[in-house]
Every structure is written in C-alpha cells, then in structure tokens.
C-alpha cells in the first residue's frame, strides 16, 4: 500500500516535470530559430497549417516548397503593421511577378478585422489566421510586425524584426533567391 502511494507520487512529480520541460522547450525553440538565422544558419522553417483569411480552406506552408516565400507577421490592431503595410504590398506587387510568394500571418486578431485591414491597405497577397499565436511562438516572434524570408528549400534565410523598408526586403529576397 505504502509503495503504491510512493510510486503514485513519483509518477505525479515526473508527469509535472515532463509538462514543464515541454512548455519551456516549446518557448525556447522559437527563440533558437531567430538566434540561428542571426548566426547565419539556415534552419528549416517551422511548418504550419492555418485557415486562409477570406477563404474557406487552409494553407500549409510546406506546400509552397520550391518557391521563395516572404512571411510577414502582422495584426490589424498593431500600429507599426499599419505603418509598413503599403511597403510590404508594394514589394509583393514587384516580386510576385518573379515567382516570390508573399504570405501574411495575421496573429492574435479577429478575422473580420483582418479582412477590413486587407481591404483598407489594398493587400493583394494572401494571409492566414494564427488566432492563438502558436505559430508566432514557434518562430520566436516577440513583437509585431516581423518578416521572415524562406528559400526554395523551405529554409529560413532572413529575419527582420520590426517595421521593414523596401531596400531591406529586396536584400532579403535576393539572398533567398541565391540560397
């Protein structure tokens, strides 16, 4: 009886420890991705499968393998995202003709607000909805907006935390095309 109680207590503590480790590991994996790209490495982009905004289907990031992808994390309530929206849209219009895919990741936001934002800024590129912010966490996004660039093999080659500008975006895309 006593040993059963002891085994139960040990199992409980072990279970709690496992949950704690999983929680810490998930939070740190995102930070590690950003650190790796800063160090010049090319880690695989964390895959995701999210609802498309304004459509009834979903989009899986890995389905875009073979093309350079610009991932822009944004939200309609974020002032800095409004400040850069037209810059990103202009870059998308320039680069989409050359096969580069721009994909917005609307984070921790109402989809209705996201649709209104896209209309207001005339966004022609697609966005997906990351309402819970779980994809943000996996990319180590700490503030909005943030922009990641993926090469054709689905590897992260560039990270722009904060508001971007046209030259910085162009440089990131050129780098991804050469990678």
């Amino acid at each position: 009886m006593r040993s059963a109680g002891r085994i139960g207590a040990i199992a409980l503590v072990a279970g709690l420890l496992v949950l704690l480790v999983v929680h810490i590991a998930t939070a740190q994996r995102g930070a590690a991705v950003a650190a790796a790209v800063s160090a010049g490495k090319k880690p695989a982009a964390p895959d995701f499968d999210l609802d498309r905004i304004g459509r009834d289907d979903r989009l899986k990031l890995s389905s875009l393998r073979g093309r350079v992808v610009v991932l822009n994390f944004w939200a309609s309530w974020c002032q800095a995202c409004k400040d850069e929206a037209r810059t990103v849209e202009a870059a998308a219009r320039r680069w989409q003709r050359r096969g580069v895919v721009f994909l917005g990741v609307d984070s921790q936001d109402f989809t209705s607000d996201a649709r209104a934002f896209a209309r207001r800024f005339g966004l022609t590129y697609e966005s997906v909805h990351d309402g819970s912010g779980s994809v943000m966490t996996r990319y180590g996004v700490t503030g909005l907006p943030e922009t990641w660039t993926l090469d054709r093999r689905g590897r992260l080659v560039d990270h722009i935390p904060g508001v971007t500008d046209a030259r910085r975006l162009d440089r990131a895309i050129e780098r991804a095309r050469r990678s």
Partner: protein
Amino acid sequence: MITRLLALAALALVLATPALGAGGGLERRESQLENRVMCPTCHQLLALSHSPIAERMRAFIRAQLATGKSEAQIERELVAQFGPGVLAEPPAHGFGLLAWLVPAAGLAAAAGAVFMVARAWRRRAPADTDDVSPELLRRIERELVALDD
C-alpha cells in the same frame, strides 16, 4: 393636478425600471465575461488589460451582448478566433481536464504524504522512550530530587 403629476411620475418609473434593469444586467454580464477571458497578447484577465486587442475584445463582447447572444455563445466565438487559451478557466474536458485533475491529485498526494509521515512519527515515539537506559533514568530522578531540595 398634483395627483395627476404623481400618477404620471409613478407610471414613468414603472416603465423605466425594466430598461434600467436590462442596462445594468448587460454591464454585469460584460464584467463577468471580462473576468472569464484572457487577453491573448499580455496573458492577463481581459478585465485588467488595456492592450489594443483587449480593447477590441471588450468592444466585441459589448456588441455581441447587445445583439442578445449568451455568454456561452460569445465564449465559443472567442475560442474560435483565439483558441482555447483565451479562456481563463480551461474546459473541464479533453486536455483541459488535466488542469483540473493535476492540482487536485497534487493536493491528495501532499495530504497522503503528511498522513504517512505523521503516522511514522507516532509509531517511532514510544520506541524512543524504551531507548532511555535505566542508568539515565536514575540520574534524572536524582537530579529532580536535588532540585526539589
């Protein structure tokens, strides 16, 4: 004339009471919901947060309550938008059930451990008195007698 005015005032009061009650009810329900929902960006109760998305969620809740939706319906819509983490209390089913069971199991385990330790101490106590040698007992006796003198 005065009687007529008093009757009109009484009628106005009777008519206004349900409207006042409904307004107060909406505010109370809004406040209750704000204490059951988390701000997704700052991870605080919505009632305590002033982040941009918290303000937006507050407006959403107000608008939905005004259209006659129930708290449960509004919570479901918020979960559809922001995931189950938006609820301050995890649901008592599926994976969320763990959040209810683990603390209860922890408390039960702690209570069991306290009980077992207390029982072990109680069992050990008489054994300790047996360990006192006759020589020590005689010495204690002598010293107590000396103290009395």
